[in-house]
């Protein structure tokens, strides 16, 4: 007995092929960097060749008769994120230098990049060529662009990136109707992304000229790529902490904007700033970030083992809290050395996330806001069972179905996070490694929620290479699942997806 496959997989494979054939364009950027610095361009030529070959092969499968429906799109999203990461790993393997020469490590680095996580398995940054280091930055920028496409425009109907949530928000209910044509909307959103990246290059470079020669054009471009994308890789082993305090301050707004709804930014640019300023999710996002930063700053002031001085204390608190809430993953100092209280605050910050419709990862402010309001409603209806009280965000009622989905998503995220923690602890014990429970919790959250650094060995100035190979393999899968918000990957493992 044969079961008929009811997914138009040819369409999904074809779309993946389209993306792979376009990949040589971003790959040529590090290629040019390699030529400029007189380094070997071969790693990129190899990646371009593989990408083109796979792309052409995939495109040949395409069947123009098959439409790209929701199922095909789910499959395509999962495949694209996986295969682009595979192609992205090729330059690391081909360069053959350091830890990332190993295929699993290369895949970890590439997936961490594409999912805008920012967790690294590099050990010695100085071993690597400038072009390979730039490729890490470019792939993160691509990851940010990719998630914006999913979250705001072309594939928003899949609900990835919280896009279906945006429709429940009054301020962005017409998210698909910025313009009548969806491709035009996508162009507008990308325009903002390109513009912000360009602005970051200019700001970083000019500040570099003024105060810090280490922030040269190379570093300005490299960090611009990963701040608006809320991604977090840095070619510097000390991350943004390597630069002058003024530059550290300048990075904060770009991370914060990168985690703000691009739809609302679009409205703000077009003369409707109140839509952003009155948005409750925006208030929640800024409020959570501000509160945590204040508490961390207070903790640092009171900690006798730390003596930063007033400006530096505030800066480190604001920078690192912003970096984690926006899910960027830069660091301005090694917060592994902080007291447990401050570190636990940062751990808590990992679960918040920025706004829907941005490049942010993690659970996202809107989900928490809806869940909290819904919980408050439950307290009220416990006393007045007949009361009908819609949950409102910025005045607009949220659909009850969406609330159930949000509860389910929160629960699923927490369950996966706990399972991953257990895997990390068990696997470390098997390999006879000393990983504390807190470090395991941190590492699980930071990879699954796509933030970047964690604590202990995996801290901002540490490396994930210290975990066993098997743990890193699991992390690769969970970064992939976490970035595209679980559902598109999990549905692929249901029978109904393929047959009914």
């Amino acid at each position: 007995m044969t079961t008929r496959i009811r997914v138009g997989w040819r369409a999904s494979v074809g779309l993946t092929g389209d993306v792979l054939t376009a990949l040589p364009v971003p790959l040529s950027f590090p290629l040019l960097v390699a030529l400029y610095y007189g380094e070997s361009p071969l790693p990129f030529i190899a990646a371009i060749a593989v990408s083109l070959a796979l792309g052409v092969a995939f495109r040949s499968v395409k069947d123009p008769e098959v439409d790209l429906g929701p199922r095909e799109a789910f499959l395509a999203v999962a495949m694209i994120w996986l295969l682009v990461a595979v192609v992205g790993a090729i330059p690391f393997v081909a360069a053959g230098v350091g830890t990332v020469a190993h295929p699993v490590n290369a895949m970890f680095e590439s997936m961490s990049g594409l999912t805008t996580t920012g967790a690294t398995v590099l050990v010695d940054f100085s071993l690597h060529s400038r072009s390979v280091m730039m490729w890490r930055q470019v792939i993160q920028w691509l990851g940010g662009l990719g998630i914006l496409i999913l979250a705001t425009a072309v594939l928003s109907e899949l609900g990835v990136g919280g896009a279906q949530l945006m429709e429940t928000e009054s301020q962005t209910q017409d998210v698909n109707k910025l313009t009548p044509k969806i491709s035009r909307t996508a162009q507008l959103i990308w325009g903002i992304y390109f513009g912000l990246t360009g602005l970051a290059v200019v700001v970083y470079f000019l500040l570099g000229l003024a105060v810090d020669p280490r922030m040269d054009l190379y570093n300005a471009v490299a960090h611009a790529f990963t701040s608006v994308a809320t991604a977090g890789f840095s070619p510097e082993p000390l991350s943004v902490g390597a630069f002058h305090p003024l530059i550290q301050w300048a990075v904060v707004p770009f991370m914060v904007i990168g985690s703000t709804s691009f739809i609302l930014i679009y409205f703000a640019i077009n003369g409707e700033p109140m839509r952003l300023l009155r948005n409750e999710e925006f208030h929640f996002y800024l409020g959570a970030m501000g509160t945590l930063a204040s508490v961390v700053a207070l903790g640092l002031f009171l900690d006798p083992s730390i003596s930063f001085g007033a400006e530096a204390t505030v800066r480190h608190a604001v920078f690192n809290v912003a970096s984690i809430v926006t899910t960027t993953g830069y660091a301005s100092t090694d917060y592994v050395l902080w007291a447990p209280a401050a570190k636990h605050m940062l751990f808590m910050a990992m679960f918040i996330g920025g706004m829907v419709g941005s490049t942010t990862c993690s659970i996202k402010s809107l989900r928490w806001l809806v869940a909290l309001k819904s919980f408050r409603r439950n307290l009220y209806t416990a006393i007045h069972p007949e009361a009908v009280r819609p949950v409102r965000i910025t005045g607009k009622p949220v659909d009850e179905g969406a609330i159930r989905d949000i509860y389910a998503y929160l629960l699923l995220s927490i369950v996966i996070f706990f399972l991953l923690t257990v895997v990390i602890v068990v696997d470390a014990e098997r390999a006879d490694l000393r990983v504390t429970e807190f470090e395991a919790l941190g590492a699980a959250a930071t990879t699954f929620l796509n933030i970047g650094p964690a604590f202990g060995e995996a801290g901002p100035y540490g490396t994930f290479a210290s975990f066993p190979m098997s743990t890193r393999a699991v992390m690769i899968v969970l970064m992939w699942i976490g970035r595209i918000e679980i559902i598109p990957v999990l549905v692929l493992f249901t029978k109904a997806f393929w047959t009914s």
Partner: protein
Amino acid sequence: MHVVIVGAGEVGTSIAASLAPDHEVVVVDVDPDRAEQLKYELDVLTIAGDGTTAGIQTAADVGDADMVIACTDDDRTNLVTCGTAKTLGDAFTIARVKSTEYLRTWEDTRGAFGVDFMVCTDLLTAQNIVRVIGLPAAIDVDPFASGLVQMAEFEISAESPVAGQTVSEADRFESLTFVGIFRNGEMIIPRGDTDIGAGDRAVVIGSPESVQSFANDVAPETTPDRADEIVIVGGSEIGYQTARLLEERDFTPRLIERDPGRARTLAEDLPNTVVMEHDATDTEFLSREHVDEADIVVTALGSDEQNLLVSVLAKRLGVDRVIAVVDSPDYVTVFEEIGIDIAINPRTVTAEEITRFTYESIAENIAVLENDQAEVLELELTEGSRFAGRSIAELVEETDVRFVIGAITRDHALVTPRGDTVLEPGDHVVLLVDSDSVSEIASMA
């Protein structure tokens, strides 16, 4: 005046009865029996036929009519009637509608459907209920600028805390303006230092919310305050509009609706109302939710029987004031006789509004005060208006006409008038003016 009334139901008949003594009235109805019957009841000409058609309208001489009143039970029939009338002549057209959507459409695009004045039954009824609830102390209340602005006249009693204050002491509200004070039959244009005495009648213009607050200052005994419990039973359109208008006045009413879907819709549209989904005839529920302690209960259910039952129940539980919506005019007195405080009939309210309108003015939204000493009118400023581009202080300087600007609405939002406020074309200006100078002001705008 030659008036054509289309629709001889309760509303049409009532209007015809009040206009027939002084005007030439023609009534059109589709039902020949009804038309025949009316001919003997009232001194009017009746025509049987479809009032939307040009043939029947020509027979009723709509081409030379001064006014056409379309008041059948069907919204679209009324709109089409007005549309047809506009093609035949230039009679002033009045349409009765149920749907607030049509009203909204008409307000947003003045002149839509060929209607010059639209009366929305459900909204009007709700406005009446809210006025009865909220401003029992007011002598006169009139909405302007689609309800964004309210004019109210209060008599200041000797016990009122406002008596003895100056205008600037009494006017504690940002969006409220004192436009006139009548003392011993004389109009005084109020200034900041004008004293308000017992027996004076004060006319204020402002947002419904600020007028409500002012009423609380003037008559704290009779005016409900924000803490008062108001319960609306029944999520009909009237119930919904009542809750909405109460919300606008800063009250937080409770609304009880049985149907889950309707309750959800209402809860979504009414952020400051507590909507409860339950059967309002369940006494156990009513006492659990302390409805017996409510200050005011409004019943706006689907049928008179249900409203009667709930009203009697509420009265028995000990509610202070019970206001019932009664669909059949015959039952109004029955309701009031068995102890319901106020019974409001939507048809009567509609007929009264249309009749009042035919008396007062057909040109603008207008309110006449104190035996026609002064009028409050709403003017829409055109491009060439002498008002446009000038500040209020300049305008007062330039003319010797006695007028006070009470409120301005710009793009459906209230602008509080100050001396330096500059008027723009498209603004709606609500002002009080000496009756003798009405035409002068109207020509300036």
